[in-house]
């Protein structure tokens, strides 16, 4: 039986990364030139990794489904990026960020990985500033910080509400520089269909050229997946509509374990669903909760306009339930609290599925100008989408599928269970446990990409320096290409009556209903059954127009949705298995009388890593036990 | 071996290699244009003497302008500037046409700088006018066309008795105004001068200039035709 080895270096927590760097194996510059690396996805993590590895001298090939890597969805990250600079002198430190992330993740993340991230957070900020990211500054000219959901220090660096855009573009530009230098090569509009494993090692990919439909083979000494999250399994999400889980699923089928797939974060502040045709949900940055107050009417079904409801008839339920953190409770807590109020009939808006986020008091206290300076562009965005003015009436918000803490299982080196296959950024599972803290996703992407992977990949590649170029005529390529082409042909040949999108919508509905913010055994079992039925229906009645050898967006979508069914099943299986409530995973059976989640550390303090055993057999569970030696495991309370 | 074709590579000119780049071409174009803008002021101030009743004052000024050596140099520079402005304008325009081979079916008229979209056409009309104008006056002085080049005052008064010439001149000045309307502020943008304080001032001066200067020129034939 496969034994999960997280390869955590020995020594005290704060010295592990330093020791690792001092002792890991290196590749000489002359040998780096002979080694090829494939990077799939080039958002903040992928572009940072590709650029940094190219700078080191490796030959890097980058594959993105977009027309340019500048469009990767990291660009939509709004709020900011955490670092432990302690510029505010408010008592921040590496340990405190580490502690906040571990606690925020409800004690389901790996200590060593999280500490390393806190440790390199300052380098990430230094790097971005040097690359020209125009972070917000004080009048003194020094960098400004703000506090961000779920923590009590101000450690978040930001560029208005477009921090993700600025950081992603910085990484993109670094990558463009390496392309010009001839060290990296870009393959835009490519969709990865399969992973190539030869003699147990990741050796390449099969990709489809989305413009011509041509199926291509690409070989390398190592493959890096930086493909982001798969929140689009819920159909409506805050993700880009083409975000998907196909590359991760291809890796999973080839032997990479999938860890904690059910840990999917539902973001509390999204613009609510407005109509049936809606294709995506737009996020309103969590930073809004710094000054906005969340409330619903105290009276059920109160149809008055928000400004007509007097103070004493408003229920500021977050402040009421969580006096210590108030509106700044972590995302999962805020999301569930909103759902609880709406389910109880206090929701507002025509659907009753939203709550107010009110800036009245903040504007009164700080002035309209101060609020505009902080959130101006977010308010504009909100007005554009809803036609309502947050300066004069409260915003309406509701939770939406946002981020997947779960992902491919990786060890301390960020390597999956397939040697030579790495997963970085949101695509892996390692740093956020059961719930991610605000402003730590960009940090993880950039940390993995700039500072961790370029070091750890050398440790593996040092044993590959004698391996010549991987030939693309290896039988493994023949087989994978044929299977991929067969799958595409099969999708085209069904020629049924329902569109791909209609299936995706129905799948999303099942997932949101039974495997979303609140779950229970009965619902999950029902969902499992329904997903299986829907998958059968899909393979018998989907309608995919067009041909295989041309631009065919529907075919692309169909391939992704086919993978979403398998992914959904895995998510539900994982949610069923975890008989406790922790972080974003809330099982109704496991809650206190006050409705707070009940963790079960005795039995579930582990990472659930799932092994693929075949299309028609259930995945096999492997457990990576988590031990907390540097923090006291406590009940996560924000009261 | 130095064949002319090698010295002037038309392809290179179109690709922006002459004067380094498209930006350099634009700078030259703007400098030449701005020089012409300044010249128009000098030209107008002398011409306004035509409205006086004393032919001598004007003829003396005209004689000075055609006789003084410094002015002669100025004249060469001026013609050079004009030619550069025209050639650059045409080259840049051809590049611009090439940059969009397929046209849009529907175009919403842009709300910004209306006249900027027709600079090549207003410029072209002004060029045709200039040719007529040169035939009327400047070529006379150069001896290319017959006439009494000591009495420009008389020539002008004779010419503007014809309604046809009046109409040609009036329309041309109107078109010149259109051209200048965009040209004035555009030159400053090309020079790199754009800030919150100066730009509104430049734009206002540009509008005043593009109305007053052509109006001043148009006034001359108008007054002569109707009042002299």
């Amino acid at each position, binding site marked *: 039986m496969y034994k999960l080895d997280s390869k955590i270096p020995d020594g005290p927590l704060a010295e592990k990364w330093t020791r690792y760097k001092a002792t890991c194996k290196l590749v000489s510059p002359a040998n780096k030139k002979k080694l090829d690396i494939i990077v799939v996805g080039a958002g903040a993590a992928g572009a940072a990794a590709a650029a940094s590895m190219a700078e080191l001298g490796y030959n890097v090939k980058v594959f993105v489904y977009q027309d340019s890597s500048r469009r990767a969805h990291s660009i939509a990250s709004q709020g900011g990026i955490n670092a432990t600079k302690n510029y505010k002198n408010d008592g921040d430190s590496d340990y405190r960020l580490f502690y906040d992330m571990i606690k925020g993740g409800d004690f389901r993340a790996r200590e060593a990985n999280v500490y390393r991230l806190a440790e390199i957070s300052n380098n990430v900020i230094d790097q971005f500033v040097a690359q020209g990211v125009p972070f917000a500054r004080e009048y003194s000219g020094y960098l400004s910080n703000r506090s961000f959901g779920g923590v009590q220090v101000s450690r978040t660096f930001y560029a208005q509400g477009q921090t993700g855009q600025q950081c992603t573009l910085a990484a993109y530009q670094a990558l463009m520089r390496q392309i010009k230098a001839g060290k990296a090569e870009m393959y835009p509009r490519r969709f990865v269909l399969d992973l190539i494993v030869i003699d147990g090692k990741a050796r390449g990919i099969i990709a489809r050229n989305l413009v011509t439909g041509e199926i291509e083979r690409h070989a390398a000494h190592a493959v890096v997946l930086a493909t982001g999250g798969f929140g689009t399994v819920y159909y409506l999400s805050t993700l880009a509509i083409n975000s998907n889980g196909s590359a991760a699923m291809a890796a999973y089928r080839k032997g990479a374990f999938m860890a904690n797939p059910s840990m999917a974060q539902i973001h509390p502040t999204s613009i609510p669903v407005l109509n049936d045709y809606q294709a995506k949900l737009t996020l309103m940055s969590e930073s809004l909760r710094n000054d906005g107050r969340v409330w619903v009417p105290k009276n059920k079904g109160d149809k008055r306009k928000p400004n007509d409801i007097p103070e004493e008839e408003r229920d500021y339920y977050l402040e009421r339930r969580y006096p210590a953190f108030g509106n700044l409770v972590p995302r999962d807590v805020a999301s569930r609290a909103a759902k609880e109020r709406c389910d109880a009939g206090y929701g507002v808006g025509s659907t009753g599925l939203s709550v107010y986020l009110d800036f009245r008091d903040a504007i009164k206290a700080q002035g309209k100008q101060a609020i505009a300076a902080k959130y101006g562009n977010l308010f504009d965005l909100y007005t554009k989408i809803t036609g309502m003015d947050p300066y004069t009436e409260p915003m309406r918000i509701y939770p939406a599928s946002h981020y997947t803490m779960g992902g491919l299982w990786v060890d301390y080196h960020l390597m999956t269970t397939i040697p030579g296959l790495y997963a970085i950024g949101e695509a892996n599972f390692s740093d956020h446990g059961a719930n991610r803290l605000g402003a730590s996703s960009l940090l993880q992407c950039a940390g993995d990409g700039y500072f961790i992977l370029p070091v750890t990949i050398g440790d593996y590649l040092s044993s590959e320096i004698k391996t010549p170029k991987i030939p693309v005529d290896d039988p493994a390529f023949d087989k994978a290409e044929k299977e991929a082409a067969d799958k595409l042909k099969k999708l085209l040949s069904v020629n049924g009556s329902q569109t791909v999108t209609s299936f995706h919508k129905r799948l999303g509905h099942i997932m949101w209903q039974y495997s979303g913010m609140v779950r229970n055994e009965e619902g999950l079992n029902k969902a499992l059954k329904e997903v299986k039925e829907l998958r059968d229906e899909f393979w018998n009645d989907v309608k995919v127009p067009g041909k295989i050898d041309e631009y065919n967006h*529907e075919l692309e979508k169909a391939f992704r949705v086919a993978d979403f069914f398998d992914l959904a099943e895995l998510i539900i299986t994982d949610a069923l298995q975890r008989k406790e409530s922790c972080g974003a995973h809330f099982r109704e059976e496991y809650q206190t009388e006050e409705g707070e989640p009940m963790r079960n550390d005795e039995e579930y303090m582990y990472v659930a890593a799932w092994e693929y055993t075949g299309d028609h057999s259930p995945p096999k569970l492997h457990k990576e036990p988590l031990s907390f030696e540097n923090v006291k495991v406590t009940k996560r309370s924000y009261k | 071996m130095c064949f002319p074709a090698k010295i002037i590579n038309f392809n290179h000119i179109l690709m922006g290699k002459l004067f380094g780049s498209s930006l350099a071409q634009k700078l030259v174009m703007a400098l030449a244009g701005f020089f012409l803008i300044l010249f128009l002021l000098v030209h107008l101030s002398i011409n306004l003497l035509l409205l006086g009743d004393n032919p001598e004052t004007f003829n003396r000024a005209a004689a000075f302008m055609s006789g003084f050596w410094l002015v002669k140099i100025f004249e060469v520079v001026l013609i050079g500037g004009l030619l550069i402005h025209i050639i650059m304008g045409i080259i840049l325009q051809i590049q611009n046409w090439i*940059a969009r081979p397929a046209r849009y079916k529907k175009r919403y008229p842009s709300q910004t700088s209306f006249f900027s979209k027709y600079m090549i056409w207003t410029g072209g009309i002004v060029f045709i006018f200039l040719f007529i104008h040169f035939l009327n006056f400047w070529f006379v002085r150069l001896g290319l066309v017959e006439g009494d080049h000591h009495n420009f005052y008389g020539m002008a008064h004779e010419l503007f008795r014809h309604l046809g010439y009046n109409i040609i001149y009036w329309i041309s000045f109107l078109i010149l105004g259109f051209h200048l309307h965009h040209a004035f502020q555009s030159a400053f943008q090309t020079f790199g001068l754009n800030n919150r304080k100066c730009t509104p001032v430049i734009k206002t001066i540009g509008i005043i200039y593009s109305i007053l200067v052509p109006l001043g020129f148009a006034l001359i034939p108008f007054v002569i035709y109707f009042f002299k």
Partner: protein
Amino acid sequence: MKITLDIWRQKSPNDKGKFVRYELEGVSREMTFLEMLDYLNDKLIKEGKDPVAFDSDCREGICGTCGLFINGRPNGPVKGITTCQLNMSVFKDGDTITVEPFRAKAFPVIKDLIIDRSSFDQLIQSGGFISVNTGAAPEANSIPIKKEIAERAFDAGICIGCGSCVAACKNASAMLFVSAKISQLALLPQGQVEAKERVRTMVREMDRLGFGNCTNTGACEAECPKEISLWNIAKMNREYYKATLG
């Protein structure tokens, strides 16, 4: 409501292409423009016809993928938005909407409304970066930057690379895109070291790629979804003169 659509259909880069008219009933005011196109495609697929190919990704106005030329303007009649942020509520029942791809020599059509904007990547490759390797950065606060300067850099840096400026410009010029990057990096002390080389190489690349020239019309600024200022073009001009004359 009922909408008539005149949509550019072009099978491949070399196909001549033509406008095809679609009558679409049941359009809701609450749809976004792209959701309306999704709805049209849904219908076309069910009828066994080829759906209209168009690009989009984030659908929240930040990735820059989706730009379309709608009724004669990039991103339709509303100022300061991307195509995905355009709502059908701005149209009336019975309206005819003409939908074209962004047109420029440097943006060849791939299929229908999808264009190839890799020229923008090439522009950034030619110098739109600061040459700092990973690990070589000094402490972030070691170089103070005036708040106002950082804000100006941010205002230029928010360009999403959608190509609306090129589409709107009568000359298909990329000056606003290029100048935004040049100006962002030239404002920051970190980027000033390479400012001269950067402006030279980026302008050279811009000319090489076949974009048109700037005639200071300002259509780019007017149609930019992020409302990036013409000031950046003037700044680029200054930077260029400094680099070539100084």
